[in-house]
């Protein structure tokens, strides 16, 4: 498939259009607003569904296939925050606190962007390795951990390592994703058949509603773009591109399929806005949310789900 048709199919997906609707609704000052608790409800559904489906797929393959990709994922997750931190500090002139907070978001991954990538590939009937959701789970924490350790080293931050680790491993995102993976894995095909109408059948519809809400929040935060400066805007677009390309090359090297390479690229390119903000709020409370939330949510996320997905797929195709 060529870049143009991939781009069209990505831009005209209900999810992306719903995201744009959210932005438009804010710009025209609509009174559209999700009721309290709905965002959290949709998040719980999405994270559990992604984990559960991933666990089920993982139960169908020999686990040793997953070892090398898992190491590659860990490796990238740990390294991305390191260079992100130094780039933000040296060239972006951010202080150590804000640089580490932003680095934590880019080191981690976005489960919703991953969900979008899967929906994108499924729609085009492109195959990818069954262990990709497990890779998502593995890559969620190390990047945040690395960035928080950098913050500890370079700032006067006194949050104890114990409370950081506790926050990372017990936050709802991790519990739902890893819990879902384990449940999906243990319950196998029999379990999957019982609940798949909810967790598989409704997935894209619920993802669409979720993206509408993200669009509403993004729309309200668009004016923060002026506050964050040109460097962060460029960082939020170029770093995902570089990270995706790097991951695709590594993916090719370790023998992933084109679809698998693209998803690995998406994981490396995406910035977390569920697990990382929560961890940063507790561990680096002095960091300014305008920087890290705007970068992850208003710049990188829209870039990834609109242009990023077809672009990463096209990059992956170059290597095959």
């Amino acid at each position, binding site marked *: 498939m060529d870049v143009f048709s991939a781009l069209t199919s990505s831009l005209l997906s209900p999810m992306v259009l719903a995201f744009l609707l959210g932005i438009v609704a804010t710009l025209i000052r609509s009174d559209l607003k*999700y009721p*309290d*608790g709905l*965002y*959290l409800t949709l998040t719980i559904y999405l994270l559990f569904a992604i984990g559960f489906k991933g666990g089920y797929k993982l139960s169908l393959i020999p686990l040793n296939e997953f070892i090398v990709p898992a190491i590659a994922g860990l490796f990238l997750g740990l390294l991305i925050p390191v260079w992100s931190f130094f780039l933000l500090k040296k060239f972006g002139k951010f202080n150590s606190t804000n640089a580490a907070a932003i680095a934590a978001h880019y080191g981690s991954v976005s489960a919703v962007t991953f969900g979008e990538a899967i929906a994108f590939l499924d729609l085009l009937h492109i195959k990818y390795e069954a262990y990709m959701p497990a890779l998502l789970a593995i890559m969620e924490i190390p990047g945040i951990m690395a960035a928080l350790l950098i913050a500890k080293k370079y700032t006067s931050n006194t949050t104890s390592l114990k*409370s950081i680790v506790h*926050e990372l491993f017990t936050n709802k995102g991790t519990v739902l994703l890893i819990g879902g993976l384990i449940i999906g894995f243990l319950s196998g095909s029999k379990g999957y058949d019982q609940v798949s109408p909810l967790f598989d059948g409704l997935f894209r519809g619920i993802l669409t509603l979720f993206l509408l*809400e*993200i669009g509403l*929040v993004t729309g*309200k935060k668009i004016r923060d773009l002026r506050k964050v400066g040109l460097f962060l805007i460029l960082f939020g677009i170029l770093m995902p591109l570089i990270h995706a390309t790097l991951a695709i090359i590594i993916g090719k090297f370790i023998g992933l399929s084109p679809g698998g390479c693209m998803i690995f690229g998406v994981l490396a390119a995406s910035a977390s*806005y569920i697990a990382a*903000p*929560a961890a940063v*709020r*507790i561990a680096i*409370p*002095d960091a*300014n*949310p*305008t920087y890290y*939330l705007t970068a992850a*949510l208003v710049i990188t996320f829209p870039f990834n789900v609109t242009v990023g997905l077809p672009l990463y797929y096209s990059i992956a195709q170059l290597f095959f």
Partner: protein
Amino acid sequence: MTLHTLKLVTIISDDVLTQNLIADIKSLGAKGYTMEVAKGEGSHSSRTYELEGENIKLETIVSETVADNILMLLAEKYFEHYGLIAYVQNIDVYRGEKFI
């Protein structure tokens, strides 16, 4: 039934601190608490959408000494870095012995 004059300590903070704050006030002698979700904007950051995380409003009825200790601990652990508001009010409660 007689009324006891006690202190109502109210803490408004980022919800990521919920568990820590509850453990802190209990360790200083608070017998219980009431908590609700709060939204708002302040000098530290704004919490107007669920996605940004939420604030909590944590209230506890305690003796004057415990109230002082709670405020001292909050000042020491949180005031400098976290977005946190705390205030104390005098209140008259029935069954005051429940709280001290």
